[in-house]
């Protein structure tokens, strides 16, 4: 019989995720409630991950209507649906074999959708060209990223491929790197500057690890996940120059590009900056940028589709990307079509335009207001400090835990932030993420919460969190108040 010793070492080496432990606990608590166990709360509220629909955010009507018609083309004759919905569904069905979303497609995506995405990128990055052949659709952006990482991966020990990875990073990234067999080389983001990227820190990280592995790529997310940092032009340029000088492949996660709300902030794509840096950069720097249906406005995580655009990559490499995507067969057709709707929304004059615009504005307003509210609220709690987020869908406040809690965690052999989350879950039914899942190893403790939730849900979470947190702080005599992150406006 196959036993652990026979299991592929790469699989054995995938680290245990603290997140799954908390997920099991949340499921357990939910089950207890279902069985009638008395608790001070009626249900568990889970805002540990970026899953807006789960939290109660509504999907975009236009998207759902078009997809419903594509699934059930008899609805083409249903006049209660706006004509632009039906026309778009008809056009999309024409690019599906046999006029059905149940047919296979090319592994890298339906050509029509790849073209739509290329055109979207060109519109977004005014003046920069984009080709459909450089756009690859995968079942979620992480799946595309995995293909790239696998192509990079080689060697073991000090020749093992390494990827410079921010700390904190998205909580799913460390296990993905393990799965690909590449080493994680952390570079610290600067908390006191709103989690900015620091060039000297990039150099330090690289130098420190050159002996330990072979760094070949640098991963960065903008807007930052979970930090909420939005890079400005200069910062992006610095990173590009660094990657160019050190011959690192740029892996740029831009999934939350549609969620920048900080005043004076805007989303600038890495590609756009690259192409304004002159031929020596724009013709040579190799880059992969990622986007997905799991974006703020769409929130369609369950449809499973994302894309990556490859820039300046060797044609042989793109050939291999296509080959490797074959083993996944393809991204689900409904997801591919949803990507088309994401990059090609209703236009002014279309019947669906007003509703569409209202829904987008509502999502953006909710996000912006929640970010402000949560930041101020949490920052005011003793033993908690929060950097203002400028984009993205998370808040990442820091916990200044009393030594009693840290001691208790040590005794239980659990990370202190995780213990905090476990206790919060059991006592208040609130499920947040722990910073250690985001690669946090400095000894500081952080919480991760998704703020793309209905405002009432956020209020409920904040109330329960405050109640728990203050109780905890009260039981410990001398909490460390830490350095409060203040928005620059607060000091004016």
């Amino acid at each position, binding site marked *: 019989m*196959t036993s652990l010793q026979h299991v592929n070492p790469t699989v054995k080496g995938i680290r245990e995720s603290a997140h799954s432990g908390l997920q099991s606990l949340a499921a357990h608590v939910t089950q207890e409630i279902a069985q009638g166990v008395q608790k001070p709360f009626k249900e568990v509220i889970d805002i540990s991950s970026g899953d807006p629909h789960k939290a109660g955010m509504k999907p975009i009507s236009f998207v759902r209507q078009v997809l419903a018609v594509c699934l059930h083309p008899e609805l083409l004759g249903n006049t209660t649906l706006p004509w632009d919905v039906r026309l778009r569904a008809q056009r999309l069905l024409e690019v599906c074999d046999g006029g059905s979303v149940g047919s296979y497609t090319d592994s890298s995506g339906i050509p029509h959708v790849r073209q739509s995405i290329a055109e979207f990128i060109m519109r977004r990055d005014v003046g920069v060209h984009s080709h459909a052949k450089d756009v690859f659709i995968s079942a979620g952006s992480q799946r595309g990223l995995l293909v790239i990482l696998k192509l990079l991966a080689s060697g073991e020990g000090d020749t093992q491929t390494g990827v410079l990875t921010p700390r904190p990073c998205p909580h799913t990234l460390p296990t993905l790197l393990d799965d690909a067999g590449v080493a994680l080389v952390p570079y610290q983001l600067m908390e006191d500057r709103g989690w900015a990227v620091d060039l000297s820190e990039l150099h330090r990280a690289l130098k420190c690890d050159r002996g330990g592995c072979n760094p070949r790529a640098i991963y960065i997310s903008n807007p930052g996940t979970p930090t909420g940092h939005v890079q400005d032009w200069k910062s992006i340029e610095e990173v590009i120059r660094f990657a160019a000088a050190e011959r690192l492949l740029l892996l740029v996660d831009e999934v939350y590009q549609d969620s920048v709300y900080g005043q004076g902030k805007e989303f600038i794509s890495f590609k756009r900056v690259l192409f304004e840096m002159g031929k020596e950069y724009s013709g040579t720097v190799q880059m992969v940028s990622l986007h997905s249906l799991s974006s703020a406005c769409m929130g369609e995580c369950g*449809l499973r589709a994302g894309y990556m655009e490859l820039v300046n990559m060797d044609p042989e490499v793109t050939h291999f990307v296509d080959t490797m995507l074959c083993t996944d067969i393809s991204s689900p057709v409904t997801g591919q079509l949803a990507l088309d709707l994401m990059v090609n929304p209703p236009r002014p004059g279309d019947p669906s335009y007003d509703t569409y615009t209202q829904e987008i504005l509502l999502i953006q307003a909710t996000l912006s207001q929640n970010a402000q509210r949560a930041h101020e609220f949490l920052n005011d709690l003793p033993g908690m400090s929060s950097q203002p987020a400028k984009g993205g869908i998370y808040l990442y406040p820091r916990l200044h835990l009393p030594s009693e809690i840290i001691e208790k965690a040590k005794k239980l052999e659990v990370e202190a932030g995780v213990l905090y989350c476990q206790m919060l879950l059991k006592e208040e039914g609130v499920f947040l993420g722990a910073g250690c899942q985001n690669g946090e190893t400095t000894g500081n403790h952080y919480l991760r919460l998704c703020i793309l939730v209905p405002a009432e849900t956020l209020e409920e979470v904040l109330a329960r969190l405050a109640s728990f947190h203050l109780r905890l702080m009260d039981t410990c005599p001398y909490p460390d108040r830490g350095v409060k992150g203040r928005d620059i406006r607060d000091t004016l």
Partner: protein
Amino acid sequence: MKKLDSTVLARRANQIKEELRQKLRKPYKRVIDLYWGDPHAAGVKPLSFVRQVLAACLYPDLVNSNTLPVDVRQRAQKLLGECAGGSVGSYTATAGIPEIVHRISEFITKRDGGAPSDPKNIYISPGSQWALRNILKVLVNSQASPRTGVLTPGPCYPLTNFTIEGLGGVTVPYCLSEEQGWELQVEELHRALDSAKGVCNPVALYVINPGNPAGYVQSRKTMQEVIRFASEKRLFLLADEVYQECVHGEKSEFLSYKRVLSEMGPPLSDTVELASFHSASKGFMGECGLRGGYVELVNLDPDVMKCIYKLFSTDSCAPVLSQIALDLMTSPPQPGDPSYPLYSEEIQHIKTMMVHNVKRVFEVLNSLPGFSCQPVEGGAFAFPRLHLPPKAIQKAKEMEMETDLFYCMRLLEETGVLVQPGMENGPKEGTLHIRFCIMTPEDTMEEILSRLSSFHTQFMKDFS
């Protein structure tokens, strides 16, 4: 890693489609693409109930309108209640929505005459190959020396072999006996295993039942022999059963490996490690584009199960719509439900179509000199054998092409029919085959057989 050689044919097919769009004159009006097992692409209609429920799940306003039958609306409502936030856009648990996984385990138990099925052993994935890939990844150590081997049938579904090699493993082919209706003979399994000595370390045995590309349905006796062999040689049994709904032979019956194993009793039933795969892509639903499948794991070490869970968790979850499709496949409308009459009519129509198609394929191809075709008992493909004249083989050599690819290219150019060259499936050395999908409307199949017959007759004459 080598890419499948389908590119040259696929590229030419796309070119021809473009040429037809531009109204270039050809002896045919459209390309008939039978390369993949893709019923919808071939013109088979999706099941109405499935599409109606999915549409209502996507756009819940439909649940409250009278456009859809009441059982469709009730099912959609129930399913939406099982989705986080009532939306198919939310993530689900790694292995799938628990209620759906549970219902799948009930389907399996019912299908297998009561053999118990534990929901904890079931993972829903974006297609069965995704799950297969994960299981193979656990078993195949790319850095092992000697390399890990997996016994696979010849002929086989090409993607599986491709995946094994991509993971750093070695495929060890065992030949199916074409003259005996593609029977799997256990002596051949022994021979294959022996051939691996000194070459690789075989850890698993992959079987496809009903077959792909060859359309056999295994007998209980064969399956028992396979199970005993796997047990004796300590091989992990990987049973690809995605075509279980496609049984056309009158005397054939699908039995799952799980059922046969369970009915063999202990110690085998408690010890043979088995992974069985099913999918929403094949069978009556034919929803290849939704990307939904599942694996059921039996008799695995708990620590190994933990590793499998960890690996599946590195991806988010299967698309919610495909999870729902699997639920509809395993819990279809029942007699008495408003949708039942239409549903059973559509199913019957597909069944009749398949029986008609396999009969016609068998008749027509066997009547043509240079063709021989085993009866297609199950699956979605015909895999007839070509007996081509030496001149044709010579011409192919001159063009630096494999003979069956040469035949398929000519067929495509002259008739617009796209089929897969048999070499992709790794059949026995020195034999030539083509594979084509037979899940097509009846009139399309007649059209195909007509074009193929005239082409073949001419081809044989040209190279005689």
